[in-house]
């Protein structure tokens, strides 16, 4: 959870100038809330997204299918995006390290696009959602075991 907080902190700092004052000592997202929930973070911010909807979905090895669990998270993300119509997002597609570099770049792009397709199908204008792949270049968890790989195979919705 600490790592996850560090990952979003960068985006959060960039947003600080155009959102409400961050709470000092915030200990990171407390996990996804229910649909329509609100958080103690700046409305429309990355941390608000992470806390109220969940900012990421996970994938099986070498797959880009959206699981039913992922579908629920994206449903909440679409609700959140509808609440903040001026927010646009970039979907980051990531893979685990157990593939070749170039193939993983393509797989990350395919995952990011799969997330985007769901959000668009749920009514978010495609122009508000862009994609980028990092392949295996930016793992969330720096360890070489199956649990870490599962955390690293992800699509992360990041507020622009």
């Amino acid at each position, binding site marked *: 959870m600490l790592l996850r907080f560090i990952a979003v902190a960068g985006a959060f700092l960039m947003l600080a100038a155009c959102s409400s004052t961050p709470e000092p000592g915030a200990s990171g997202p407390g996990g996804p809330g229910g649909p329509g929930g609100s958080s103690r973070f700046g409305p429309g911010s990355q941390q608000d997204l992470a806390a109220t909807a969940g900012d990421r979905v996970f994938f099986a090895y070498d797959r880009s299918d959206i699981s039913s669990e992922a579908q629920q998270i994206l449903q909440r993300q679409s609700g959140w995006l509808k609440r903040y119509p001026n927010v646009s997002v970039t979907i980051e597609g990531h893979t685990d390290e157990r593939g070749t*570099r*170039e193939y993983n770049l393509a797989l990350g792009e395919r995952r990011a696009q799969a997330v985007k397709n769901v959000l668009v199908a749920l009514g978010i204008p495609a122009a508000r959602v862009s994609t980028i792949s990092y392949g295996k270049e930016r793992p969330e968890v*720096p360890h070489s075991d199956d649990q870490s790989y599962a955390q690293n195979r992800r699509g992360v919705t990041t507020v622009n």
Partner: protein
Amino acid sequence: MKQDRSVLGVTWLALAALLLLLAPAPASAELRIDITRGKVEPMPIAIPAFAGGGGEEGKVGSDLAQVISADLGSSGLFRPLDPRSFIQNVAAGEGPRFGDWRQISAQALVTGSVQTQGDGRFRVEFRLWDVVAEQQLAGFAYTTTRQNWRRIAHIIADQVYKRITGEDGYFDTRIVYIAESGPAQKRVKRLAMMDQDGANHQYLTDGKALVLTPRFSPSAQEITYLSYASGTPSVYLYNLDTGQNRSVGNVPGMTFAPRFSPDGSRLIFSRSENGATNIYVMGAHGGGMSRLTEGNSIDTTPSYSPDGAKIVFNSDRGGSQQLYVMDSGGGGIKRISFGNGKYGTPVWSPRGDLIAFTKIEGGSFYIGVMRPDGSGERLLTQDFLVEGPTWAPNGRVLMYFSQARGRGPRLYTIDLTGSNQREVTTPGDASDPAWSPLLR
């Protein structure tokens, strides 16, 4: 920058004339290494310090012998003898006393000299001797600027390699690769270049932008690679002569996995659109883009055959990652990999006879080779992660990167026979190597 260019630019090297000192004697049947055999007993070779006057000449003469020894020794085909065992002091400039060299079991002997010319440049002469037959096999002289003496050493090592094995060497070459540092979650990756033996190491990018998969142009003057500098991962081109560094083609979407055509006129690469990744080709400096593959699969890591007629690539169109060959204009697609597991990063040998690849099977990674029709698959090495083979220009040695579990990646070379695996010395973690053609 000016200083860099004088080091980087191959064209700036004043490698004046190769002067044949003596016509090589008729080939002696006994002094030859047959490198097509699986296991080769390395040939004992004596390489005493090159003769020179005092001061810098003497130092360079000794350094030349050391670099030539290191090159030939690294091939696994030669065993340079310990200079402390030498009986004759050829630095005095006289001809070889063959008996003295036979006594220490030398089969081949390299002698040479360094002289400073009137214009301040070095003139380096060398001779290769068959100690048993007591005859000269090769003799050349080279003139070069003083700072380029290492290239002369590599060129001489290539001459010895060629004269003894019958095949071109690969010592006068460079490696471009990705230098890595920092924690995995925010790894810093920089474009870096060095001589084949790790000397003259330099960084070409500052690490601010993520960069991946560099490849040399056939002239070794340009490097194409992937950079995130613009925000969108795209194909870039770095000109070693001018230092100019720019994205190519202004193509929308992610473009990656670039590689030059054998004649240097085109770039072949992957482009992702709406989740599908196809192979495209365009002019090496942008323009004239056309699409070579279609469909929703992932088609990536294209590599031309040396005659430019075919392209081998990696696709999951059949359900899992496999290797395919197609005509260079697109079409005629045939699957060539049929073993268990997944196959990626195919690279056509400069000789045209083999395709090297990365294979993933049963939780392990392998580097292997197969013929262009998919037959004769051989796996050369295996580890937790081994990936991204690149060919030495003579098609006899592969370089790749290897990573033990929980460790950073490093570069290694391995002989086509699967023997002589060696780590390539880099200042830090290293991945994505690409071997240049011979620099001449």
